[in-house]
């Protein structure tokens, strides 16, 4: 790191936009941070001696003679075991009234793990929620978002998953979190007696939106400290990544970049991938698992944010209200855990993959029957049976309030199969049917 002994102060801005200022300066490094009248800023463009700075808080009230000094370093976080149990803002400064962290100062947004130094994820994360454990099994080292409409209880489900996941550390990266949600997380973790293994970096709706851009990198720098240096299993919760992406578009639009789809920057895919790809399983046992939230607008998953996210993450979990049973369920159709095949039928019972697939296929048949019904057609006996099955399956498996072990989930599903269908209709490998069919 460069010596900070002499800090030249500049006082002449040549250009001010909503998010950036430009001035003439020399010896400035790309990505380096600066202070503009006490506000934190980062170098985003250098042309000759014209330096453009992005100001995280926004440029409101910044005068052309603002005092600018360059700090000769990128944004950093101090890491040590003292992080545990603490709350920080987007800059990594404590907001819980506690002391500053003593430890090692690290640049955030560090390089990627060499792919040949990774290990294939193989540890199942049990959540008790059958819609997840049975149909979309999670594995440590995975990255997966909840795709949810803003009115769904995604933060509650995420907190529940986090607490049941048996992680050594849980790191919350809150972006544009309402104050109520922030307090909710604090409360839930506190009540569970888990505060000492939680670390939070929070940007609430009261803070300037551009500050959010720092939150994932702060959270992941802390995560890498615990996963790499301490071989711990770390679960990172990022909510809401849609608001993160919105902040990206604010900055890029203000820098006059050509927007691509949905006025998002053309680099959205790479920007999001840099964050999500921090999820990793190390051979030494440490791991980083990322569970995120991507809120949808009007359920539209073709919008650039969920679309790019889906291409990056290892699946997605859809929450949906099932009006038949009046509960929120994990939608079995659009939900997917891409890593499930690494564990199901291996760490879980042998019949898991086939039971899962058959149940979803029968559930899909029920959806077709429902369409028939809506179009005013008569239902066949099979249709009627699928509808009954679907209702019970939804209630006893898909609903997010289910909390049982995987064997029980499988047994419940076999019960439903035997109750409503013939063996051929279920179409599962014969040897499994012989063993598990409930007669």
């Amino acid at each position, binding site marked *: 790191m460069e010596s900070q002994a002499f800090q030249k102060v500049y006082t002449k801005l040549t250009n001010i936009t909503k998010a950036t200022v430009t001035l003439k300066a020399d010896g400035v490094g790309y990505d380096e941070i600066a202070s503009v009248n006490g506000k934190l800023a980062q170098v985003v463009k*250098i042309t000759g001696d014209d330096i453009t700075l992005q100001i995280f808080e926004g440029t409101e009230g910044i005068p052309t003679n603002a005092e600018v000094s360059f700090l000769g370093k990128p944004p950093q976080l101090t890491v040590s075991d003292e992080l545990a149990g603490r709350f920080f803002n987007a800059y990594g400064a404590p907001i819980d009234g506690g002391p500053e962290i003593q430890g090692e100062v690290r640049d955030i947004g560090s*390089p990627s793990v060499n*792919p040949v130094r*990774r290990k*294939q994820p193989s540890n199942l994360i049990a959540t008790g929620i059958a819609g997840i454990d049975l149909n979309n099994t999670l594995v440590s080292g995975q990255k997966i978002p909840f795709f949810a409409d803003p009115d769904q209880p995604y933060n509650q489900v995420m907190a529940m998953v986090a607490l049941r996941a048996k992680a050594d550390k849980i790191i919350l990266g809150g972006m544009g979190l309402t104050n109520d949600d922030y307090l909710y997380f604090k409360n839930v973790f506190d009540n569970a007696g888990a505060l000492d293994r939680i670390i939070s970096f929070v940007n609430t709706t009261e803070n300037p939106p551009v500050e959010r851009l720092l939150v994932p990198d702060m959270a992941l720098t802390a995560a890498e400290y615990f996963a*790499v240096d301490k071989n711990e299993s770390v679960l990172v919760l990022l909510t809401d990544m849609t608001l993160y992406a919105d902040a990206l578009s604010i900055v890029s639009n203000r820098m006059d970049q050509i927007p691509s789809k949905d006025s998002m920057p053309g680099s959205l895919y*790479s920007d999001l991938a840099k964050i999500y790809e921090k999820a990793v399983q190390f051979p030494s046992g440490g791991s980083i698992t990322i569970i995120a939230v991507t809120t949808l607008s009007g359920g539209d998953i073709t919008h650039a944010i969920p679309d790019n996210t889906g*291409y990056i993450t290892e699946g997605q979990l859809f929450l949906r209200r099932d009006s038949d049973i009046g509960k929120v369920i994990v939608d079995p159709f659009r939900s997917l855990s891409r890593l499930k095949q690494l564990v199901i039928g291996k760490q879980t019972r042998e019949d898991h993959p086939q039971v899962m697939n058959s149940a979803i296929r029968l559930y899909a048949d029920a959806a077709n029957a429902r369409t028939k019904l809506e179009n005013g057609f008569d239902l066949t006996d*099979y249709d009627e049976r699928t509808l009954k099955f679907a209702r019970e399956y939804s209630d006893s498996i898909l609903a997010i309030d289910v909390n049982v072990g995987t064997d029980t989930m499988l047994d419940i599903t076999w019960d439903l199969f035997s109750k409503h269908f013939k063996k*051929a209709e279920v179409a599962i490998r014969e040897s499994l049917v012989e063993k598990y069919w409930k007669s």
Partner: protein
Amino acid sequence: MEKENKTTGKVVGIVSNLVMVEVNGPIAQNEICYISLEKERLMAEVIKVVGKHAYVQVFESTRGLKPGSVAEFQGHLLEVTLGPGILSRNYDGLQNDLDKMEGIFLKRGEYTDPLNREKKWEFKPIVKVGDEVQAGAWLGEVNENDQPHKVMVPFKMKGTFKIKEIVSEGEYTVDHKIAVVTDDDGNDTDLTMVQKWPVKVAIGSYKEKPRPFKLLETGVRCMDTLNPITEGGTGFIPGPFGTGKTVLQHAISKQAEADIVIIAACGERANEVVEIFTEFPELEDPRTGKKLIERTIIIANTSNMPVAAREASVYTAMTIGEYYRAMGLKVLLMADSTSRWAQALREMSNRLEELPGPDAFPMDLSAVISNFYSRAGFVYLNNGKTGSITFIGTVSPAGGNLKEPVTESTRKAARCFYGLSQARADSKRYPAIDPIDSYSKYLEYPEVQENLETNVGDSWLKEVTKAKDVLLRGKEAMEQINILGDDGVPISFHETFWKSELIDFVILQQDAFDKIDASTPMKRQQYMLSKVLDVVDSSFVFSHFEDVSSFFKEVINEFKQMNYSEFESDKFKQHEGALNELLKKQAN
């Protein structure tokens, strides 16, 4: 190529990984330079020149880079190093050997040697002193993982040469002088087993590139049976996320009948590459009994690795493919996903403030894609031997919309289209290749038709066409049933629909994670298709439409059990027997 006095320059502008350098001498488009940043040297490529200013894309993060930093131009383009020892390696997009890098994290400015310089190879000469040779001629051979790795006259050498010296059979390192050749003017050149080639230029050392005509077996039924790809053919797999592009590509790379498989993991997930690292050393190539990793080369430039190197990665992969093709080998090249490569082009084009085309992609996107696909193909080498590169790329259309620029441009370039459908994936009908929209243009080639008739069977093409017709008619019947209701149509509509479901469930759907079902050899595909078509051709008596579905569900169930059993095993035959009973009972 090397310049006497290297041109240098100094950095005058930085926007992310686009850097502007003021230069003091001649430079070339796409020339490589190194920019010094304290102790690190960052590799970059010239992508635009305006007056004294070179715009270079840096293959690394530019964090901390300052104006005034020195750039040194290298006098050559981005090149790969070619020689024995490339097989089973894991490279990044610039051909750095990932296993040689230190530490858990990738270090900026760390470039590692793609080859092992110490290892000795058992070299057998092919030419003798006095022979006349030209670029690409085989000088000798070493055994690389049991592949006959040909050591060739470097592709860069123009004209004809006489062999002046050639080493005798023995063990040599790659840098050992193995031959001396003399040109027409009497100048000698020393040759080793190593040569370099610029990735963005196609290696052209072959005599002729005919239309592909031979089936390339992949073991994936809905490709081989319905829309086969050829040795030297091109294909693409577009599909929304989660529809099975990567699983399909991995299945093909495990099973396809190729000598060499190159996997370019281009801007996608690191864990998917780890899956290959982990599984391929364990899995056997059923044809050779050797481990899959021995015939495989991985180019991993995953989504979190530098974007400019991502763009380079597909070219690196293709050039290595061309190198092995020139040895007379059958190369299969897979890129997942070509959309990420196109996005890398877009990011750079936007930073250059070029006039954008549709969806802000560069205007010449279509030409760039076509040019790349055209490097695949089946060739006759100058010595009369044959070699091929079959290329299959995935496309990740934004929002799943196939009308976007990358899909449309690729459609013009690739001859096979394997479109993955969201609806099929949602109902877990894997592989989710849409049987009606997908196509293989090769089926229209008379030489391919002839090849299939000779190698698979006289009536094969007719059967395939029939299966496609049944699928189409089944779809129409289903639409009618949906409009008019189950009992609003004649029972025969249900029969037509369920016959298409039969083909769907038995032939099209294939469980990539089941040991037996995952890969179906051509002989078995042929057997199953004619068995299924026998059922399609039979007429049955049904008194009620519900009987149709329950009958066909039982038929499908027996067929599926056959698919899960070893071909012609007792279990297979037992289910076939049960199936025949079922059919007899229902027969007219």
